[in-house]
């Protein structure tokens, strides 16, 4: 739908983030809050369990000012525990810390999960918020979705490496790393981080992801975009695919025959759609 230009609004896809979103949904408790980024579609879907409700926001359905008018960049659907969503890199870090601070002042239960990415950790507010949260023993768990890209450039193309484990060790913040393609692994990491945060120890989880550039097809104006898999081609895997790619993992889990049949089904449905 996005490639067909069916939306007036910009939508940031998150192919490859699905396991983290589902793990988040399984980990969050009723009293917890979630602060997202512009790449929030999978999380809104996992928390709302309603694709049509999410689509209503993308399509700006409903009267002006009604619930289904949030578009995508700041989508924070009601009754999902999603307190806030920001399209400004790092902005939601401080807001999430504020929510956690309010819970502390008012003696309310619940921790705050904050989504961010390998681009946003370059922002000063990432550093500031970790210091603030550690200083005041706030219940926050920061999930760093490391998909290697910020806009069209890889980490190697734009900056020096950052070892988050050392950053967190220096600040006294707990740190975990997980592979974003494996639901049990991410869920275990989020659960442990939630436990730390509940005790007033801020936590960081770095999740390795393989995202849009592998699965969304060609991007206009981006000549280097590796168009390795597109729906109309089926779920084709190329030579030398990263073993942590979610589709490679799926192929391994299903076996080649089941995966081939799934691919045919996807192509068929795509053609009908």
């Amino acid at each position: 739908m996005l490639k067909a230009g069916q939306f007036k609004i910009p939508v940031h896809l998150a192919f490859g983030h699905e396991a983290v979103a589902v793990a988040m949904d399984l980990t969050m408790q009723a009293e917890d809050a979630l602060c997202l980024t512009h790449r929030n579609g999978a999380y809104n879907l996992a928390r709302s369990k309603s694709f049509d409700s999410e689509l209503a926001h993308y399509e700006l359905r409903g009267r002006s000012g009604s619930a289904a008018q949030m578009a995508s960049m700041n989508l924070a659907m009601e009754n999902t525990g999603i307190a806030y969503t920001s399209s400004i890199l790092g902005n939601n870090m401080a807001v999430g810390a504020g929510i956690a601070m309010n819970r502390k002042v008012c003696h309310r239960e619940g921790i705050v999960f904050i989504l961010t990415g390998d681009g946003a950790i370059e922002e000063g507010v990432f550093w500031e918020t970790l210091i603030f949260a550690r200083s005041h023993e706030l219940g926050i768990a920061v999930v760093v979705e490391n998909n290697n890209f910020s806009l069209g450039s890889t980490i190697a193309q734009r900056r020096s490496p950052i070892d988050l484990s050392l950053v967190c060790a220096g600040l006294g913040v707990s740190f975990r790393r997980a592979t974003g393609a494996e639901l049990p692994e991410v869920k275990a990491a989020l659960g442990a981080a939630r436990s730390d945060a509940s005790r007033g120890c801020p936590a960081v989880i770095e999740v390795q992801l393989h995202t849009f550039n592998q699965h969304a097809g060609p991007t206009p104006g981006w000549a280097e975009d590796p168009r390795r898999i597109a729906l109309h081609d089926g779920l084709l895997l190329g030579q030398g695919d990263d073993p942590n790619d979610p589709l490679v993992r799926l192929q391994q889990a299903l076996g080649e025959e089941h995966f081939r049949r799934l691919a045919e089904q996807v192509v068929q449905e795509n053609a009908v759609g």
Partner: protein
Amino acid sequence: MPLADPTYIAQIIAQVNEVTARCGPVLLFGENINYGSRIGGLARGLTVNSEGVIQNVGNCELTHLGVGLGIMLDGGQAVQFGKQLDFIVLGLEQACDTFNFIRAYRPRSSWGSFTIFVVVCDQGYQGPQSSMNAAGDFASLANIPVYCLNGAEDAARVVRRHFVAPGFRILCLSQRHFASPALQLPVEWAAPDESIFRYKSGDDATVAAFNFSLRDALAMDRAFRAVGIRSDVFHVNFIPGMDLAALLDSSRRTRKLILIDDSKTVTKFGDAIVTELASSSLDVGVLSYCRRGSADNEYGANEDRFLPDVDRALAFIRGT
């Protein structure tokens, strides 16, 4: 118990304490808020009720604004105490973007409160990086109310009504007035939203004071009265979309409008009054004292005094 002859800052903090004594859980935070000089005297004598917290914090102003808005988003009450307006610039992204999310997507009934309570360094000699004094620019950028506390009564009314009210606003205090006696003068009339206060009345001229110019405006009024001229004197806060009727009606009656704005900003709220008057058929003369396009040397370490020329104002009123 009322303070006897309080200073400008002591009178305001006494008013704050009246609010925080009964407002329930509230977080008052700022760097050195309960240590050392108490933010240069800004938080000296500050108290809260048993559910409130006074919290010292580190040097991360961008995060502080986000934290305050996060507390507001979660339904809580927070006040950030700031040493100077320049530091708030570091958090402007939060002031604009986060509050835009809240007002667009969260019902007002769910809003908590966030107030920035900040000193404007306008006493001079602080150097070029502490000379920004344009409180109204923040109202324009973030489209939020900004109140400049001038007289004792306008300050008391604003603090009482807005310090922990649902929503987001900035309350500014003038550093150069800190040690001065509080300006004890009765308000003759106030707009319901505390956007405009009238301190004096007369039919010969309309004097509208912005930012921290009220004392200058009252000094001018005293000079006028010494020669038999009476003027309406208004203190005007920076409230986006405010009702200008009181100022327009006064100007139409007196036919002489004097604008006094000590802020170093290009965008002047007084321009809105002039624009409205220009669209009417009445002929109203305007004399503007402002620092639009300030010279480079106005940003250095110097006295930084803004001195409206009273003789020029008298000539303007007399038409000479």
